């Protein structure tokens, strides 16, 4: 792990030019090249139908790539059946065998490998201890709660020390609180065992919480593979910017590009300076991306002339407990979100008519730094 941080660990899995089609017309996965490093926790993130689950299923061996090759530890595995791949898998609905006890479920991968009885017992006991469920060994899956079933599914996928563990939206069926707790438990398990985990989810906050790296899928193509913070701070295109975290979009046209920055004339009026990330050049249309927490609301007092200062009208404010959001009308975008500072939030809650609170219909100005505004491909 530590070494992995400094120099990239060797690739455990390599997808090379993978294509997959079910109907012979439409590619679900288009030309996928992806390296998964030994010991990393990588998440395949994307909306449904983006090809992430198909990719996982090809790795597990339940789907065969139409084109390309998958290497596991430098061995081509396209024609290796799933049971010979030595890959553990946690399924969406756990797929615990209902007719076997918890202990028998966990022992299953060992017993099909003809491990001797004493060792099976020892390893099952160790696995049960790891998930803190020794006392429930003789229960059936149907008698356990969702979280407990989830832990058993994890233990079963790990007990035979596979090279790789795949998880297909394993927390989708749990309620929010339990899901957050399990996220931390899985993360912890990954850190203590150092096993390589490929995780599929459509929940970006889950991906951000757990992953070493995230591969963002859309339309059968990996849009960006990066660390969670890099994805958030430096999205390479509008899709990633929009999919990861909250995001305000302002369409416009590039006027000039200079030293990594560009001037953009907004479609709704006004001109701003933005970092040129994914723009074709002067004259091209673009889509600006600004995070809600990087925008400040300044009163309409005519003072100061920042580089990015736009008039806005307050539409609404939303109270969210630990923070609040202001919904503004900015340059034609009627859902422009601004995260309010705690101070602003206090005065908002009191509903006081003093300056600093926001009333619907009020005219204000917003401002943001050029480096916080990204000029991306038109959405």
């Amino acid at each position, binding site marked *: 792990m530590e070494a992995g941080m400094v120099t990239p660990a060797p690739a455990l899995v390599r997808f090379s030019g993978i294509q997959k089609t079910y109907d012979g017309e439409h590619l679900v996965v288009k030309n996928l090249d992806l390296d998964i490093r030994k010991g990393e926790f990588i998440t395949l993130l994307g909306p449904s139908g983006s090809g992430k689950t198909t990719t996982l299923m090809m790795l597990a061996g*339940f789907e065969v790539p139409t084109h390309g090759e998958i290497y596991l530890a430098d061995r081509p595995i396209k024609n290796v059946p799933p*049971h010979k*791949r030595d*890959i*553990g898998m946690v399924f*969406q609905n*756990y*797929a615990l065998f209902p007719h076997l006890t918890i202990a028998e479920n966990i022992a299953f991968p060992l017993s099909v490998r003809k491990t001797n009885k004493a060792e099976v017992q020892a390893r099952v006991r160790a696995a049960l201890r790891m998930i803190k469920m020794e006392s429930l060994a003789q229960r059936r899956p149907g008698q356990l709660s969702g979280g407990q079933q989830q832990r058993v599914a994890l233990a079963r996928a790990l007990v035979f020390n596979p090279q790789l563990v795949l998880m297909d939206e394993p927390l989708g069926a749990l309620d929010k609180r339990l899901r957050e707790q399990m996220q931390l438990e899985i993360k912890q398990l990954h850190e203590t065992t150092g096993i390589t985990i490929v995780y599929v989810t459509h929940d970006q906050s889950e991906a951000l919480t757990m992953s070493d790296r995230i591969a963002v899928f859309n339309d059968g193509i990996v849009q960006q593979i990066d660390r969670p913070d890099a994805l958030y701070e430096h999205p390479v295109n509008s899709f990633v910017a929009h999919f990861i975290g909250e995001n305000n979009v302002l369409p416009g046209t590039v006027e000039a590009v200079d030293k990594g920055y560009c001037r953009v004339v907004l479609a709704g009026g006004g001109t701003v300076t933005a970092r040129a990330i994914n723009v074709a050049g002067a004259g091209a249309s673009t889509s600006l991306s600004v995070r809600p927490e990087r925008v400040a609301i300044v009163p309409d007092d005519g003072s100061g002339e920042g580089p990015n200062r736009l008039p806005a009208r307050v539409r609404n404010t939303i109270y969210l407990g630990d923070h609040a959001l202001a919904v503004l009308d900015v340059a034609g975008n009627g859902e422009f979100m601004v995260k309010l500072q705690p101070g602003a939030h206090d005065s908002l809650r009191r509903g006081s008519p003093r300056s600093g609170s926001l009333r619907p219909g009020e005219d204000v100005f917003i401002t943001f730094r050029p480096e916080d505004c990204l000029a991306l491909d038109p959405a």
Partner: protein
Amino acid sequence: MTDALLTGADASTEVPLKRRLRRAERTRQLKALALVAPLLVFLLFTFAGPIAGMLWRAVDDREVRQVLPNTLAALAAWDGKDLPDENAYAALASDILAARASGTIAIAAKRLNYALNGFRTILTSTARNLKAEPERGTARETLGRINPAWRERTTWTTIKGAGGPLTSFYLLAALDLTRNVDGAIVAAPPDQAIYRSLFARTFIISLSVTVLCLILGFPVAYLLATLPPARSNLLMIFVLLPFWTSLLVRTCAWIVLLQSKGVVNDSLLWLGIVDEPLRLIYNRFGVCVAMTHVLLPFMILPLYSSMKAISPAYMRAAASLGAPPLTAFLRIYLPQTLPGIGAGSLLVFILALGYYITPALVGGAADQMISYFIALYTTETANWGLASALGAVLLLATVLLALVYGKLVQGQQVTGGMKN
């Protein structure tokens, strides 16, 4: 507000609330009862009643009692060790004369003939030759002269044994048992002992049909459960098709197919696979083929419903955990279909036990099942007692099977069979 106060008051005393709940529940229960009442009444008359009647007829024995009342009264104190005394002979003579007058002698003769072959002749010849009531003290001699059988102890024990009002005679007969002259239960003579082998045959045919249905039905049910809906619906129509044709028509179709000049034999001859027609019908083969065909849907449907409930994720999970396909099938899939296998097998087996028309049409003499004999005794020989006793034994076997299955299923539910 007022309601809340009232409830509070009720809670302190408890009783009115409970009574109110009972009243509310009672209305609901009455409504439910009213909904099922028509069916309940219907079943009472068409199902429970006839079954009770059948069970009663299996032990009912009042025919001889009704015809020879005085004889049976006189035999009441007889110990059966020697010939009965003069009184019994006199009573028999007067009973026979009275029965001849009322024309009921044949009723007793029929019943007594079941118990002792040839009794009909003894009784009718005596009735014919007994001109008048014998003089006092000469009844034994007179009757003995008319038919020497009256000097046999067996003749008298038979009458006493058939005295009723209840008897184990038919039930014993259905199990190839009988009572000897001393009243002990012994095996029936070999020429009458046909029912045990008949039950065995019935069970063997039913079991073969059940096994055939399971072997043929399991892959079809698997296909039905795993195919995409459009195609599985089409296949399901084919499975259910036999239900839309009359049983008689389907059985006759098998006769057409399997007879020596039938389609199957003609094809085999034409292809040169056989030199002379195979005997495919009026034997065990024909019975098993036709019954399996008729009963197959009853196996497929429970199997299908149990397989439909098995998520494909289980097999994938088994494969990802390192189980080769056969191991995964045997250890993961098959155990989860056991409730379906049990239900389908029980259904087919119980239905097969009572099969009548198919074996009667496509079976030979050695392939007739118990229902054939029940029908025979009911309609041809009018031996309702024996028919009922055979039916009762069959019913008992079926109920026992169902109970065993119920126990097994219950065990399944306690220990597993739960879904995520």
